[in-house]
């Protein structure tokens, strides 16, 4: 039997959840035994197989048009989609900008911030993605498993991946459930 395929990507997050994934240390070899690790942001292959994967993992929320594209692609190519970490599940820290609005946040960052050169402006290259409200993944595409945590513990990630790789449904509760 072929091993189930797993792919991951990060969008509007800080890469911390992937760091936590690496924190499972030698247990990652167990995952490799159980599953075929395909595209991830920290390996050479960057995009999930066009033919599809069994489990797709997304870290980070959806913050702009580029994020939306990644989210839709991952959803389309994954049988099971996992939202990993608080940004993916709730919107997380980037969602704080929703309280003031995109314009004010950009202005603060590119114009007003003390570290900017005088006369700095908000980048407006047409190739840049369009900013949107910061959202949780499940607001953009249907999510099968929400794994909250900032970041989720390595133990939690290992548990979730191991369960999914063996065709079981992980139960996110008790020691595996925290929101911070």
């Amino acid at each position, binding site marked *: 039997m072929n091993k189930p395929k797993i792919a991951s990507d990060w969008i509007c997050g800080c890469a911390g959840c992937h760091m936590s994934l690496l924190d499972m240390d030698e247990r990652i070899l167990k995952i490799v035994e159980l599953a075929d690790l395909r595209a991830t942001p920290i390996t050479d292959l960057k995009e999930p197989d066009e033919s599809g994967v069994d489990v797709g993992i997304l870290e980070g929320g959806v913050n702009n048009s580029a994020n939306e594209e990644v989210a839709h692609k991952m959803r389309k190519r994954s049988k099971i989609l996992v939202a990993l970490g608080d940004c993916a599940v709730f919107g*997380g820290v980037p*969602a704080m900008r929703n309280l*003031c609005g995109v314009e004010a946040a950009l202005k603060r960052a590119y114009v007003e911030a003390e570290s900017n050169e005088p006369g700095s402006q908000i980048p407006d290259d047409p190739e840049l993605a369009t900013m949107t409200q910061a959202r949780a993944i*499940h607001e953009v595409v249907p999510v099968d498993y929400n794994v909250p945590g900032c970041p989720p513990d390595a133990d939690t990630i290992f548990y979730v991946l191991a369960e999914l790789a063996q065709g079981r449904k992980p139960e996110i509760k008790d020691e595996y459930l*925290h929101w*911070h």
Partner: protein
Amino acid sequence: MLQITINGKQIEVPEGTTVLRAAEKAGINIPRLCDHKELTPYGGCRLCIVEVQGVRVPMASCTLPVSNGMVVNTETEALKKSRKFILSMLFSERNHFCPFCQVSGGDCELQNAAYHEEMTHWPIQPGWNNFVVDTSHPYFVLDNNRCILCRRCVRACAEMAGNFTLSVAERGAKSLVVADTDVPLGESTCIKCGSCVQVCPTGAIIDKTSAYQMHDKDLTEVKSICTGCSVGCSIKLMVRDNRIIRIEGGWHGSVNHGVLCEHGRYDPMNESRKRITTPLMKKDGKLEPVSWNEALKAVADQLRPLSGQKDGIAAIVSTKLPAETLTAFKDLFAHNEIVTTTEEGMPTASVTKFAEKQGSFEGKLDVLSNADTVLCIGVDAGRTHMVAGFMFKRNMPKGTRLINIDPEENELNDLANLYLKPKAGSDLALILGLQAVIVKEGLGRSPLALPDTDSLIQKAVEETGISRDQLTQTARVLANSITPVILFGKGITAQRDENLVEELYNLAVLVGAVDSERLGLLSLKGEANSLTATLLGLDQIFELNGHKAVFVALGDDYVSRSFVERVSKVSYLVVQASYESKLTAQADVVLPVTVWSEQEGHYINLDGRVQKTQKVFSAPENVRDNLAVLNELATRMNISLESNWKQAILARKSSVALN
């Protein structure tokens, strides 16, 4: 008793019990957020819904009284679904992002409730309401973005502190907790008791000092007694690494039931005095560090020949020290003319003197909670002994009246229904005048023989400067009350006139404050162990005339400037103290001792409750226990300190029953 079946478990509860409390009694946990056992049920969060057989919709169990034969279920699938939905709605209203919240990770009741329902995400995303964070208060932060509008803080402010500063403004999703008429909390009428912080279930009101220090699960809890004043509130110390992280009111406390005042909760956190960490001795006019042996030897050598001599040693002890220490101190200096306290019996001597004649005549603090009228005389319960003030302030919207009599400016005047400002020293005339009006108008509840009521009234008006109308009105309000209480303080007792206390007692009997069933007369005393000190006989005024040495056991207490002036003229001054002060600067020898939290001992509060403080911290290396220092000195002076404090306090009649 009523029968109720909850989740198939049958129990009996008294009438008036809510379903939530009945479930607790049956050992069944119903999730809840706005409920708090010390606050009136509110029914705001709806998380405690239950299914009641025969009722169409789920009901909030916190406000639902049990009726006989009720059958209740708390854990059906439908309820679980509803609870999840209620939580989803709560999370959608405000900023409940956990990673950057101070209470996340165990101390947030909202988060814990979500974990309990196994919520992995918010089905409804937040609405991005944005509220201004109020950081204007010195001790806490009010962040409406984290608020779930449970109104625990509003209820605590009203029902615990009786201060009514907090309320909810606006409507619906825009509702927010505000101080007064929406002014910054730091500029409001807040009296900084911190009750709101203690009850807040989320991170909406957080304590500035302890914020982000550690989760409660990683702190050690120690139950003890506040030594800030004679009320004797129970406290819970949250401790880590030999230091206090936070002080909370002890919910277990029979005196305070969880509430504290600013002094109890925050003063120890803001201690700014410099600690003395080694014995000091004056050498060439300068205080120099010395060993304990050298210091104690010098003190013992100086005091030994003076002990028991006329004009020899004057010994003065702080009433903030435990009963064991006070007793040892009394024994150590028993043979000297002056053995007294820093308070010199001002808050207690006249009361104890009257008790010698009358026996115990004072009531318990609880009478304040049930009073329909409180007459405060010589008391500023807005400044000292504040928790005693809370006990009647909280009932004022329900109709409890406050009559404030004080020649000085008084914090509670604004609140009082009547306030009289008699001329200083006219209290006796005033009290007799009140008696006379009541007797003359036939309003008394028990007979009192007064020879000439008209001349007493006339005299009262002349001496106090209070109008006849106001005097009459005050007397009528007091006499027409059903459960009046007279609360008196230093303004009366410091006059050291037991006659004043006696006339107050007569007034109390006349208006029915004191009868065979109630003792509605109470004095506030002074510091934590004022009552113990007076029972030990340590309550005289001291006057130094040619005394050769003064020994002051101050502990962690403060001294007044006039006290320092009075004792510093003496040629040999020994100060046993924890902190540097103007007094220690004058001393010939300074003995560094433990503070309240580094020693254990007994305290008797103002209404006679014998309580024990706990040793929570180890003292700095070269600092010794107050009692141990006295014992060591006694050994070196060949004096035996064998008295048992429990026996020693029985030497005098107490004005209030001890228990």
